[in-house]
Structure formats: C-alpha cells, structure tokens
C-alpha cells in the first residue's frame, strides 16, 4: 500500500505549479472574468503544448498516456491557479466520452486535437432547473437533425463541438456530437456566477449531428463519465480550497487589529483550523478517488461521489471564510477573494449539485460497502 502520489508525480506537481504560477496568476483569471473572452486562450495554447491536458489520453490518440494520477495533479494545480480554461468540459468530459464510446473515426477526428488544445469540446445536457432525468430533456433528434435549446453550456461559445443529450426517434435519451460552427446552431453568452469560465446558451434548429455511443444509453453514459469528471473536478476544488486557505492565512498574519495580528485571535485561528480540517478530509477522499479512477476500480462510483461531496464542501467553506477573514476588503471587486467564491460555487454545480452527489454516494456505498469506513 502506498497512499500518496509517487515522487515522479510530485515532481510533475512542482513543475505544473511553477508553470501556472508563471503563466496563470490570479490576474489572468480576472482578465477573463472582466472581459467577454471565453477562456484564457494563450494559457490554453501553452497548457496544450506542455501536454498537461493529454496526460490521460493514450499516445496512439495524440495524448501523453501518462495516466489519471498525472491528470489529477494537473487538475489540482489548475484549480489552485484559478485557471480560466475549459478543463471540465473539454478534458474531464468531452475527451472521456470519446474515449469511452467514440467510434474509431470520432476518436481519430477529435482526440488528438483535444489533447493538444487545438480543439475544444463540451457537453450540453441541461435545459432547465432541477434534477437530470428524462423529463428534463426536450431537445430532440430526428433524421440526424437536432432541435432544441441547451443552457448553460460551459465554454459553449468557444467549443468546436458539443456532446448533446437529446431524445432520439424512439424517445430514449441518446448522445450526439454536434459541431457548433455548423448551420442551425446559434450561441448566446449566458451570465453565470463565475464568468472566468464562460457559459452559453445553444439553440439548435435542425443542426446536423452524429450519434455517440449506444442509442438510449445517454443518461447512463453521462452518469458514468460524470463519475470520472467528478474526481478530476474534485482535484480542481481542493487546489482552489488550498489557495483560498493560503490567502486567508497570509492575510491573518499580515493584518493587525487591536494591536495584534488578527491571526492571533482564536476566532480566526479556529476558523482557519476548521477550513484546514475540511480540506484534509476532502484531499484524502480525492486521493482515494484518484486511485479508483487510475485503476478503473468498481469502487469508482462511491469514491467519486465521496471525493465530489467532500471537495465541494471544502472549497465552498474555504472560499466563503476567506472573504470573512479579509473583512470588508474581502467583499471588494478589487481583492481576489471573490474569484474563489465564484469558482467554488461554479464547480459545486458544474456536474450536478451537492445533493445529487449525496444521493449517488449513498446509492454507491450500499452497492459496494467496501468503501465503508473501518
């Protein structure tokens, strides 16, 4: 048993962290947030060149083939750096769908370009508020033509294609690949709680699509891929939580009130201790998720849900309390606290909200009690 990243993976982490420190200071995320840019294009290009995105994509398909543990390392640093990149949509989801059920042609067409960052893929599932179920999907495909509206679609304006969940001709939910520059697709930016990762509304009016994976299996596939994405997203979340905790700690050391560092007051000390505890619980759950993902364990659903639930709690707590420690300054646009607050709330909902994952956790633990604590 070795429950930690290897020394090679830790070296990778050091170099990825250095890369993001150099190339993605918070000001870069802020730049995207304050502009209409969909993401940080120059960073995306560099990240692609480094091969970071391609860690889990096989060499045969243009990737690096290093593995999921390496991709977790990258995700954690991207989260820490607040990187304004389409990671969740293009890498943690679109590439995974293609690897899981894409035809050789689909894989050959897209995977190398996703791996290099040349192309961006996304997933278009949601149409309305509430849980994801067949009733919630009204978008429809007839004769390979898609009609309906999806929102919010992460990176919907920048993406080259979207994997769309729609009703097929037998009224099952199936997946389709829609190229977004094609006719019959209209994209409109949609404002979300975290504009450093832009979203769009996609209106399809007879756009040509091709099927992805087995017909009628759409929701099951989404669930399967979301488990994988949940682990990777959890690493973005713990990276972000760590950054928010570090910010808060540094400020508590720096800021004086009543003639003392505010970090010398137990109210602040214990708040920070609770943030740390929450983060460590999340980190340990995420490690387990990383292991389950890396070996394709049958414990992945439970491990992914645990990683997701704990990471969401930790990042939301750390980001909110970071504002609290900063006092009034924490609530200004000028300070970076809100970047983490926004990101924490975006990531909390990106793959379905906390309550969805709580449900999935309990369902999975019942099926596979191996996850139960000793």
């Amino acid at each position, binding site marked *: 048993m070795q429950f930690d990243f290897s020394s090679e993976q830790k070296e990778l982490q050091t170099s990825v962290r250095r890369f993001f420190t150099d190339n993605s200071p918070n000001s870069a995320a802020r730049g995207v947030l304050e502009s209409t840019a969909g993401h940080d294009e120059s960073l995306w290009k560099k990240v692609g060149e480094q091969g970071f995105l391609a860690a889990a994509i096989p060499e045969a398909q243009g990737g690096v083939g290093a593995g999921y543990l390496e991709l977790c390392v990258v995700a954690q640093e991207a989260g820490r750096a607040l990187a304004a990149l389409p990671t969740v949509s293009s890498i943690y989801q679109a590439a995974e769908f293609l690897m899981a059920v894409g035809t050789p042609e689909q894989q050959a067409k897209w995977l190398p370009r996703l791996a290099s960052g040349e192309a961006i893929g996304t997933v278009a599932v949601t149409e309305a*508020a509430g849980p994801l179920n067949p009733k919630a999907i009204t978008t429809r495909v007839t004769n390979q033509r898609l009609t309906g509206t999806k929102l919010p679609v992460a990176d919907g304006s920048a993406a080259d294609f979207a994997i769309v969940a729609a009703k097929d001709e037998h009224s099952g939910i199936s997946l389709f690949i829609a190229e977004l520059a094609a006719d019959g697709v209209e994209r409109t930016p949609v404002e979300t709680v975290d504009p450093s990762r832009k979203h769009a509304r996609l209106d399809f009016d007879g756009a040509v699509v091709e099927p992805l994976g087995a017909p009628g299996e759409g929701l099951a596939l989404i669930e399967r891929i979301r488990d994988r994405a949940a682990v990777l997203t959890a690493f973005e979340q713990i990276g972000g939580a760590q950054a928010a905790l570090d910010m808060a700690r540094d400020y508590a050391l720096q800021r004086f009130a009543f003639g003392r560092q505010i970090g010398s007051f137990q109210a602040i000390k214990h708040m920070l201790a609770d943030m740390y505890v929450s983060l460590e619980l999340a980190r340990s759950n995420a490690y387990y998720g990383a292991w389950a993902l890396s070996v394709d364990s049958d414990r992945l659903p439970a491990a992914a849900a645990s990683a997701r639930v704990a990471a969401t709690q930790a990042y939301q707590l750390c980001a909110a309390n970071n504002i609290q420690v900063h006092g009034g300054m924490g609530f200004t646009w000028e300070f970076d606290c809100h970047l983490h607050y926004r990101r924490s709330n975006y990531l909390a909902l990106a793959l379905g909200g906390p309550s969805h994952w709580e449900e999935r956790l309990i369902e999975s633990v019942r099926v596979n009690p191996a996850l139960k604590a000793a």
Partner: protein
Amino acid sequence: MNFDDTPEEAAFRSKARDWISANAPRELHAGLSKLGFGQSDAGVGDPMQAAKQWQKKKQEGGWAALRWPREYGGAGASAIEQVIWQSEEGAYAKLGGAFTIGLGMCGPTLMTWGTEEDKRKRLPKLASGEEIWCQLFSEPIAGSDLAGIRTRAAPEGDEWVVNGQKIWTSGAKESDWGLLIARTDTGVAKHRGLTMFFLDMKSPGVEVRPIKQMNGDAHFNEVYFTDVRIPDAQRLGAVGQGWTVALTTLMNERMSIGGSMPTGFDELLNYAEEIETEHGRAINDPRVRSRLASYAVKATGLQYSAYRSISALSRGEEPGPENSIGKLVAGSMLQDVSRFALDLQGEYGLIIDEKLSPDNARFQRMLMRSPATRIEGGSDEILRNIIAERVLGLPADIRVDKDVAFDRIPTAASAGGR
C-alpha cells in the same frame, strides 16, 4: 402576551393603511415587491428621485421619522406605532434605503449631542429626505477595531483641519452631510484621543470614490480628506469624547427596530412549492423539509425576538446588545439558503440572469451579496464578542493596545511591514 392590535393600535394601523393606499406610488409596488436581497434594480427609474419623493410625501403626511419629536420633523409616535407603520409600508420601505443611515444613526446622534440650533436646522431636512447623511467611521486600517482610526483632525483657530481616509461609507456620493470621527490626539490611549464632528460633504478637499463590490454593485465608497476645514461649532461632544459619541451612534444602529433581518426563509419556502427534486416536489422531499424546518425556526425566532425588543422598548427599556443576534443568525443563513436553493436548481443554478434564472435570479443575487452581511456593521466575530462580554458578562479579550499611547500600538508596519 398578545399578538393582536389593541383598539388604539388597530386605529393607527387603519389610518396608516388608508394614507398609504391614497399616497404611495402604486406603480412601483410590483417591482419593489419582487426585489430580493442583493438585488438593486427595482425598475423604479431614478431610485434617488423616487426615494426623495416618497420621503417628502411621508413627511408632509406626518409619517416620516415617526419616533422623532415633532419639532425636529418627526411624528412623536411610539415604538409599536412605528412597527405598525413598517408592516403597512411594506415593500415601499425599500425605496428609503438612502435615508437609513441618516434616520437610524446620524439623526439620533445629533439629537443626543447636537445644539438646539443644529437640531432645528438639520433634523427636519433629514426627516423630509431633503438632506442625506452618511457615517464616516471605518478606515482601511480600522474596521472591527474602530477605535484604531487614524484620520487626523488638527485644531486651527476655531476650525479643525482634517486629513485622512474613510472607507465603507454608504451613500457618500449622494450625501449632503457626514458624521465624522477623527483622531485629535495620538499621544493618549486609543479610545481617548477621538472627537466627533459633522461636516458638509461638499467642503473643499472631500473626495468620494466608489468601491466596486464583488457582486458588481457600488453602494460603498472611500472618502478622502485633504485639508478639509470643519468649524468647531460642528463638533459633537467634547474634544476627546468621540468614542462616547460613537457609542450613541452604534447603539442606535441596534435600535433600528421592527422588520427583522431578511433571512431567505420565505423565499425558499415559496420556491420549494414550485420546483421538483429527484424525490418529487421539493416541498415534499424530506431532505428539503428538514432544512426548511431548521431555517424556519431561525426566521421566526428572529422575528419574534424583534417583537420582544419592541415590547421592551415600549416599556421604556433601552435596546441592548442582545439585539446583535439578528445579523449574526441571518448573515450565515442567507449564505446557506442561497447555496441550498442553487443546489436544488442543479447545473442550471449557475445562471445569474434576471430573465433566465428561476425566481428572477433571487438566490444567485443573494449568494453574491450575502458574504458582506457577515462583515458589514460588525462582523460575526465582533458580534459574538459583544454577546459574550456585554450579555453574558465574560471577560474582554486580552488587550495589548490598552493603556498604551495610540502611536505606540503595534501595527503591521511596526511589526516589520509583514
């Protein structure tokens, strides 16, 4: 114990209701009603103009500054009458945000510490909405530690010359007058070197810069003072007595009685009736019900606590530090409620757009506004300290800045610029 109106109260209520129905800007009601916590656009056109009109009309009708004496522009009403008025005024009260600081804090401070002439000249214009006041207390270096302010006022003839910077000043841009606390002596202990003034916000050397908040609004400002001159006649209280005067202001902040803090409970309850979860209608989902119940007892607990305060007030008791619980409970609850509501919406909850988001983006706006509630007007930590010390009688924190001359108190700079 009686929740119903006495005959006198009922008469007052019906009078208020009639007057409101005859005079209120009914065309604005719908927009004001749906305006949630953290939302600013009620679609009322120029909000300041609408506010001033409503305030003036109220004053003419004898409904402004209800508890103030008539000679200062008020209505001489009782605490309970004020509560009745507020419950009848309802959503229209949201028009009056610009006057909250002036009516709730500056006016009462002037009432206690100002000369008769000041009071007769300034208070009626405050009551009628003609003049707007702001409160110049916090500084970048002195938030929770308010007595640590550094803005200097130096005497020169029968004037004071002010230099320094204030922050978190609501409505500074629109204000005619400001209530200013400044340091007049750095060689004595921090609480002893302060003096209170009021000043014309149009004085030369006053510069107001809005602060953009994380939710995009800009309700707060920085105010810079460069050689600003204030006549000594505009001093409130003695030189060096500023902290005592400030306590009057802060006590009156707590005294802003009546409608308790918004908590988000009603909005969540209503929303739960409308939407579906994985277990059917949200209101029937036991998980949602359990959360709603724990929110419910906080919301009603705060509301009834406010009623208890009013009852105490109407018996002539002063509202005490126990009123600190309102914001303490509501602040974190708002944050919690908004997160919970977004969770119910799933991925769609990311959208923050009045036209697309469920319920007019109410919960998204609440999410982005609520972190400030736990900080502004006394952080959670300060409020817990107030309860612990002033209600429960526990010892003060150990103070390294007490009985030390102000200019010798450790600061970030003196600690080596960390």
